[in-house]
């Protein structure tokens, strides 16, 4: 038997090591990506045979038609969900800045830091359904904690404060979900990333600035902020990417996507098309729309991320 060269043996071993993972990767990731693109050109209810319909799904999704002399979108619900998703993402800058502020405070050689970090991290490790149930109860119109507090403040200040229909009014439903999102996110992964970034800023920079008589505010804007900008940018981009895919659980557990579809995000719309209405092809088309948006953001990140932020030269 001819001897196998050691390089060949290494290559064979390499394939064997990768094989178990790669087979799964192929079947459950690579092939499905291609399949979902195919599905987006198909009309299929999972019961009858799929029908190829070309760009029809995308025309329904993104197109407009003329109705009584006015341009009307072919799928107003889709655009409503796009705007809902974007609206809910308005809280992201607040979340990022709040995480940064918390990280700045936690970095001040605080006692019991593990305790505080655990407290702020609690929502991140709690299962989302439990969180949504808890907040549905807090926002309960008749007996919830929020309206309770408002009533007490009203009594205290002798003002006629009215109960707020947190989850059941068009005006309040989105802000309520955003407030809950802020509560969940503020002490989570982002804060820990910020803490790590803050610890990575060289101490000499602060010492040099102190010699020049720089105050706290000055040090923050001229040293801390530029030095941690890669982390800020990364955290922000990841939050935006996550935001386009968010909102499913809140809609499913707390609001049912209502009132009047005002809390239906793209992710919940995909679920509705896929599962509730059996529009598999249409769901795939929306998923690809989200994919393309996320892709553009990622490319933007690669292309301009380096120019917008100050990378450390140490």
């Amino acid at each position, binding site marked *: 038997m001819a001897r196998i060269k050691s390089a060949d043996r290494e290559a064979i071993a390499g394939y064997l090591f990768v094989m178990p993972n790669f087979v799964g990767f192929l079947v459950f990731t690579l092939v499905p990506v291609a399949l979902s693109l195919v599905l987006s050109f198909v009309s299929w209810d999972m019961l009858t045979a799929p029908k190829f319909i070309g760009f029809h799904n995308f025309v329904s999704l993104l197109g407009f038609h003329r109705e009584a002399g006015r341009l009307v979108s072919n799928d107003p619900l889709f655009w409503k969900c796009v705007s809902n998703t974007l609206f809910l993402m308005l809280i992201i800058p607040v979340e990022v800045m709040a995480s940064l502020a918390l990280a700045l405070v936690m970095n001040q050689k605080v006692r019991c830091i593990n305790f505080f970090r655990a407290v702020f991290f609690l929502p991140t490790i709690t299962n989302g*359904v439990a969180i949504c149930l808890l907040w549905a109860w807090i926002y309960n119109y008749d007996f919830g904690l929020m309206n309770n507090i408002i009533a007490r403040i009203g009594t205290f200040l002798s003002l006629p404060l009215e109960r707020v229909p947190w989850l059941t009014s068009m005006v309040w439903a989105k802000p309520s979900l955003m407030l809950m999102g802020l509560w969940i996110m503020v002490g989570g992964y982002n804060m820990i990333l910020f803490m790590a970034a803050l610890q990575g800023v060289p101490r000499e920079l602060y010492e040099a600035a102190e010699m020049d008589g720089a105050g706290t505010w000055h040090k923050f804007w001229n040293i801390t902020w530029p030095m941690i900008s890669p982390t800020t940018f990364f955290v922000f981009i990841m939050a935006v990417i996550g935001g386009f895919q968010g909102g499913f659980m809140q809609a499913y557990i707390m609001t049912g996507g209502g009132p009047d579809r005002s809390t239906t995000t793209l992710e919940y719309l995909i679920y509705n098309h896929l599962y509730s209405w059996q529009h598999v092809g249409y769901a795939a088309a929306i998923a690809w729309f989200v994919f393309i948006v996320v892709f553009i953001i990622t490319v933007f990140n690669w292309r301009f991320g380096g120019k917008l932020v100050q990378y450390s030269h140490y």
Partner: protein
Amino acid sequence: MLQDDLIQVGMNKALAGFLKKGAIYLFLLIGGATMVIPFLWMLSTSLKSYSSVFIFNLADIQWIPKTIYWKNYIDVWKVVPFARFYLNSLFVVTCVTFGQVATSALAAYAFARLKFPGRDKIFFAYLATMMIPGSVTMIPVFALMRTFGWIDTYKALIIPAIFSAYGTFLLRQFFMTIPRDLEDAATIDGCTLFGIFTKVILPLSKTALATLTIFVSLGNWVSFMWPLLVTNSIEKRTLPVGLAYFQELYQYAQPDWGLLMAGSLVTMVPVIIVFLFNQRFFVEGIKLTGMKG
């Protein structure tokens, strides 16, 4: 005179430091209270009976119930098959975590150390798929599950969840940092590649393996949308889906919030315990995956 000035400056500094410390702790206490109060409300509600949850007089809200109603914690296992949900979740999470850590470690070793044609191209494919939204692949995989006849089976809950580019990426990054000298020494001693993997690489990567184990098990413990899609019968539900089903029982009435909150708390307990004992792996893991920029 000069000395007095210096003392004055020193005292001012001490006072400023004291005020700053005070402000920091005040901030943390207010922030901490904001985080904890909802959970205390959850606990308080879970210890109230159905009727006493609904206090109509808002001034009379009880944080500590007058009569503590432990029965919710017994009833929650009877009203819905909560024990079954628990066992399902434990079983699924154990299988997925073991499968994912094992297959990811094997692949990560090959990507980090072995030379084979196409290696970098395959690894790039792994990286490229990491930014694809979950729903893009979820739709066809859901269709695949129906074609395979796997809907409402443990196979559908476990097998697609095992394979992740993320785990492979995380472990590969860690394996790259291990010095090669140790492997060279093992090769000279006649160790096979698999021997090097199990006797050198794995023991040196305990932190990374623990981190991945924790992230995968937590991620699957709270996983909701996929189990919701692929299970129909109550017997196959995992905890989050079971909890959602529990709430749906009350679609047309004011839910029994005491029971729901007791159920929610019961699902949180194991994760909190795991977190308290492994906080450092969470922190390390977040840094490891988040700081690639």
